[in-house]
């Protein structure tokens, strides 16, 4: 993952920022956090009969756990910068996703955009990113936080496609985020094989968040009550100026298939360990045919 040096003002919220050539310290930040409704990690996933998705009945849904780190990071940046900085949740999902959005609002986010359109059910990453990009542009942004991946389909593509579409740098799998004094850049750490990589990026940028970045707060009871009065702007494709779900993606899901049934476990017993090893090697070669 490389950091691009081009800074882009596209989507900046306060146009006057460019007129005086930079940020003033007290200028509020517009923080966007992306959120997806996904099946609970403990849910038992079954494919529907048509092979077009999973069976949603009787499954518990939650906020994508990595998105919780994104929301928390947004809230912490808002608290650290103070003033009028805001955290806006942007979510693409069915109407049931309102509950997850409301939970993020209860954690402390200020408002939300809920993109909800039947034509977007199970949309592939390119389509989803195109729609999100337009909603994010409308909202305005200085920093975008999102989960490093959603734990449902684990595609981990949205943040990269969004970075291209919004023409901003991306840093993925972040485990720490430090905003610069002048709020124009940030130093982000990401865990890589054998160590951490520190990357300095200009803002606006999109940061995908990894476990360990922070400890997401609970939605407090007063927070839950306040969340009821916060605004969720629901947008359809038409509201965002699309005639139909934007295509252009390079991938298409043909069919959803259940996992192949795992074979039964076979215990190899022998008096001597050496004999057991020989038997296992024989089985791997002759029966499993993997060596």
């Amino acid at each position, binding site marked *: 993952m490389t950091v691009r040096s081009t800074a882009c003002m596209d989507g900046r919220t306060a146009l006057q920022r460019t007129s005086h050539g930079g940020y003033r310290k007290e200028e509020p930040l517009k923080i966007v956090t992306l959120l997806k409704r996904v099946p609970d990690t403990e849910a038992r996933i079954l494919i529907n009969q048509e092979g077009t998705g999973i069976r949603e009945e009787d499954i518990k849904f939650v906020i994508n756990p990595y998105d919780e780190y994104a929301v928390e990071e947004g809230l912490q940046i808002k608290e650290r910068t103070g003033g009028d900085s805001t955290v806006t949740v942007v979510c693409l999902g069915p109407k049931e996703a309102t509950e997850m959005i*409301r939970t993020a609002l209860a954690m402390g986010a200020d408002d939300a955009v809920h993109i909800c359109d039947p034509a977007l059910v199970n949309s592939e990453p390119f389509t989803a990113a195109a729609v999100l990009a337009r909603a994010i542009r409308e909202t305005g942004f200085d920093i975008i936080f999102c989960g490093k991946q959603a734990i449902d389909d684990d595609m981990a593509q949205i943040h990269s496609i969004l970075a291209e579409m919004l023409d901003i740098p991306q840093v993925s799998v972040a485990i720490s985020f430090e905003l610069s004094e002048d709020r124009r850049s940030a130093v982000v750490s990401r865990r890589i094989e054998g160590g951490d990589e520190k990357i300095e990026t200009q803002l606006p940028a999109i940061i995908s968040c990894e476990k360990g970045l922070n400890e997401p707060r*609970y*939605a407090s*009871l*007063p927070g*839950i*009550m306040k969340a009821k009065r916060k605004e969720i702007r629901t947008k359809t494709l038409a509201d965002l100026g699309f005639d139909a779900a934007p295509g252009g993606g390079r991938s298409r899901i043909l069919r959803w298939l259940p996992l192949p049934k795992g074979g039964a476990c076979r215990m190899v017993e022998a008096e001597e360990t050496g004999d057991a090893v020989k038997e296992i090697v024989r089985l791997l070669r002759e029966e499993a045919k993997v060596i």
Partner: protein
Amino acid sequence: MQFDLTEEERMIQKTARDFARKELAPVAKENNEKGIFPAEIYAKLAGLGFLGMTMPEKYGGVDLGTFSLVLVLEEISRVCASTSVVLSVQNSLINWAILKYGSEELRDAYLPRLASGEILGAYALTEPAAGSDVAALQLSAVRTGDEYILNGTKIFISTGDKAGVVIVFGRTDPHERTHGISAFVVEPDFPGFSVGKVEDKMGLKASTTVELVFEDCRVPASHLLGTEGDGMRIALAGLDGGRIGIAAQSVGIAQAALDEAVLFARERQQFGKRIVDFQATRWKIADMATQIEAARLLMYRAAKLRDAGRPCTKEAAMAKLFASIASNRVAYDALQIHGGVGYTKEFTIERLFRDARVTEIYEGTSEIQRLVISRQVLEEYDSLFPS
């Protein structure tokens, strides 16, 4: 009739569940084994609004109802019933009594501190000679000028040694039985207040239960709740809420016992198969789940009635009676499914079994619940079919 939780209720339940799993679960075993009262847990619970759930926002509360409270109590009890004792007493009894019967000065003085977790509350009703027979209480409260002088002993007081405020029931009129009782808001540093024996209980070991001793304890007259003689009325009205709270605690313990039993039965192999595949286990699981569901619905109904401001004495007693019995039966069967290991402290079911026991005793024994229920049922018959 609506059986689904609202979005808000699900969120409240989720916060309680997440808190219980992440904050309580890692410490529950040790706290209960060593009898540790976890002050930091209550500070965190207060920070999330759990200690002032049902009081108005102007006192720092969240303005939620009994229904939200039972959702929380069930989730907390599922992981640590000791913790739910404190939560239940504070919300159902202390905050409620001060809010409903306290003067504006008393409310301003105590409610914000209770909601913020600065102080915890205790409810001192039971005496050595006044258990089920509450009206027999003897602690004397004699008015002298601007003060009441309290003399006597209270026993089995939950959190009595940790509380910053104690609601004490005393006798202001020795000639009147039920109308001679009054309730007072007492601070532990009032002269003449002391903590006596600390009970070594069978269960709920991470909560404390103590004796409180009052020797010429001087309480300002302004600390009277309601008016003189209101004590019994306050105690009885408070018990409706308290009993719904214990029903919720019972359901939580029972649910935890079922969870433990199923997880164990799916792993444990005997006679060449998992014991969950034996009919003897499956029938137990069916009965346990059914009792829990029934108990939960009774508790929901009682809580809804209370939130609607409707009479709920019978329903609260029914919920408490049924849920506490269910809790004990479920814990018994869950331990049976565990077999020998269930009888050791290695397994959580041992603690659940002990914790369940008291739910049939405190906040009114099962026998008292039956007295309350039968009295009301017979009254209903009397009005329908006068004899």
